[in-house]
């Protein structure tokens, strides 16, 4: 068996930033989306009220998720859908495969679902002789490159159009060196049309499932979800159990927030509603837990399940923008991913909660008001508590604490430190053991501390 070692964010991030122009390009591309989001949010005076409402609706849903799931199942079944429950990724994949096998399906058109990504459905199906094509343009691009998405809304945001040109030249036989977006998109469209026509089943994700009606909504900008499931009789919808909202009337709140937060659009181009199978067809809904009920059980991290996957926290995160989605080595990168993954498996993702400067921009941007930066801070103590911090860090903090508990020792050591620093030769200060000094000068080392100067000043005042 292969043992997967935890991969650290700092190393991958350093690799990404080493290509400075690329990292800056990536940062600018995402900042552009963040600015569009700001503009779109400001077109609604009631923006903050909407956020608060969405947050409350989701909190309420989480507080009785079991009831709402049952209600959803009953209503969806009443409408003719077949509902399945999967405890984990393996069960999910097996359920999907069994359905496909029963219908003798070998070609599937899929429309963006981070959940199937999380469950690694594609490689599983490929192993069983099923070809899956991700039909969202970005998703398809990363699929052709045989790499995971780097963003949950813009999966190929890390790829330049020159690279897409080269990729399409290789796979679609487009002109060499072509970079024109319209030309490339058209070529993709032609090819994807064949995929849609040849597919025997459609798999989609779910953005919102409505307990009251048993229906669900899939939001896309390319309309490919509709195409994928309308051209054939079998539709499998895979959803995490947290996608639920109680009533159809709640939907408007979320649809108004989602598009604006994600891309700055008033609403995504297609919000497709599904209520039962198409005539003569079959609709399967797979409800997946895969660690979610573990998060639901924890008071600290339950709020993270409110996430509607808009990606705004990624676009605003100054670390994500400069380190790229792949540096997180997780299906969901950025601030929310740095909670969801370690909350389930702290050892594997121990560096993620530290890949954060605690600027709190994610918390302010989140449309459902998840206290992201606070949860990241709490996760750090979970990781320290489970002894997953490096020994040197733990020791350093223990020593620092020891000194800070003793004012006189602190003042004394401060003085010694400053004096030593001021006489140390440069090479002793700036070496590979001092990450501060690689690109930065050390702070000044004044002769006297504030407390010394203050005492003198007081002395003079009294004299």
């Amino acid at each position, binding site marked *: 068996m292969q043992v997967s070692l935890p991969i650290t964010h700092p190393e991958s991030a350093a690799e990404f930033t080493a290509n400075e122009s690329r990292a800056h390009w990536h940062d600018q591309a995402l900042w552009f989306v963040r600015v569009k989001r700001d503009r779109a949010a400001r077109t609604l005076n009631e923006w903050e009220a909407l956020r608060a409402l969405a947050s409350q609706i989701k909190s309420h849903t989480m507080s009785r998720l079991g009831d709402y799931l049952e209600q959803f199942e009953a209503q969806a079944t009443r409408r003719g859908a077949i509902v399945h429950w999967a405890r984990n990724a393996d069960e999910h994949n097996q359920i999907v495969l069994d359905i496909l096998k029963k219908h003798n399906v070998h070609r599937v058109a899929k429309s963006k679902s981070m959940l199937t990504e999380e469950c690694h459905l594609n490689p599983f199906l490929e192993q069983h002789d099923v070809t899956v094509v991700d039909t969202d343009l970005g998703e398809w691009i990363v699929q052709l490159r045989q790499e995971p998405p780097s963003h949950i809304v813009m999966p190929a945001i890390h790829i330049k159009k020159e690279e897409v040109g080269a990729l399409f030249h290789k796979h679609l036989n487009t002109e060499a060196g072509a970079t024109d977006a319209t030309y490339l998109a058209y070529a993709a469209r032609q090819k994807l049309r064949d995929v849609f026509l040849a597919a025997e089943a459609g798999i989609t994700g779910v953005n919102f499932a409505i307990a009251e009606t048993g229906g669900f909504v899939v939001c896309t900008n390319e309309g490919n979800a509709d195409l994928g499931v309308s051209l054939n009789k079998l539709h499998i919808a895979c959803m995490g159990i947290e996608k639920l909202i109680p009533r159809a009337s709640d939907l408007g709140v979320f649809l108004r927030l989602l598009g604006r937060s994600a891309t700055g659009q008033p609403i995504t181009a297609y919000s497709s509603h599904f209520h039962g199978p198409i005539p003569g067809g079959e609709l399967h809904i797979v409800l997946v837990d895969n660690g979610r009920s573990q998060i639901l059980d924890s008071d600290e991290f339950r709020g993270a399940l409110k996430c509607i996957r808009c990606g705004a926290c990624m676009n605003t995160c100054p670390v994500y923008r400069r380190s790229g989605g792949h540096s997180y080595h997780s299906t969901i990168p950025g601030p929310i991913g740095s909670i969801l993954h370690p909350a389930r498996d702290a050892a594997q993702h121990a560096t993620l909660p530290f890949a954060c400067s605690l600027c709190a921009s994610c918390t302010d941007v989140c449309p459902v008001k998840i206290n992201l930066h606070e949860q990241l801070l709490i996760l750090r103590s979970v990781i320290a508590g489970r002894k997953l911090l490096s020994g040197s860090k733990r020791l350093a903090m223990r020593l620092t604490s020891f000194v800070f*508990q003793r*004012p006189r020792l602190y003042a004394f050591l401060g003085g010694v430190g400053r004096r030593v620093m001021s006489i140390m030769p440069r090479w002793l200060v700036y070496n590979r053991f001092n990450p501060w000094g690689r690109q930065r000068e050390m702070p000044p080392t004044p002769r006297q501390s504030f407390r010394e100067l203050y005492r003198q000043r007081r002395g003079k005042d009294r004299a």
Partner: protein
Amino acid sequence: MPRVGLFIPCYIDQLYPDVGLATVEVLERCGQQVEFPEQQTCCGQPMANTGCTADARPVAELFVRTFAPYDYVVCPSGSCVAMVRQHYHEFFHDDPTYLALRKKTFELTEYLVDVLGLTGWQGRFPYRVGLHQSCHGLRELRLASSSEVVGPSYSKTRQLLGSLDGIEIVTLERPDECCGFGGTFSVNEEAVSCMMGLDRIADHQRATAQVLTAVDMSCLMHLEGLIRRQRTPLAVMHVAQILAGRAVPNVTATTAAGANG
């Protein structure tokens, strides 16, 4: 006359004593009677932010013991105040001494505006100034409106600085992007941290700032480290130093008119 306890964070005490002195002078100019309790050390933020809660707790306890007797606690660092106000809760919960302390602990410019009710500040500072909005002051203390939140825009620090004679506060492309310091983040994630800092500095340069200022010396320590290494012609000053009328290190004064034309 209320007793004001001065909270001078450890790194300001040791490395930037003049910021501490400037804070004293600013408060005294407002007629405040300030006192520096000597047994203070640190708010415990480095340990807490690394997740070492057990190591942070006794330091936080020392802080509360030290400052409980004062009517107000004032500190020239937004992030240390945020530590006390937002993150001590897990140590002290509903302890009445803590809850009282929480209500009377203020960042310097916040104290001047909210407690003393100042709307401006007298003085002359004929420079183009870039105001770096430090994240903890911004999004945990709400010293200013943050660009993500929809609502009226305001900034307590800017209100004070902007009223100085001859000052021009330059417009940044990203009004409140993080500088990348982030405490131990600056060492842990050195590569990203420095890139963030350099980007922040470049924004100030494009806006032709001569002086870069903030209410948090820790952000400035990081930015100054990069500025000095790169020999960028940009002076770094804490807001308290500007308010106290300190001279600008190594930058020639211009008139605001000259700056515009």
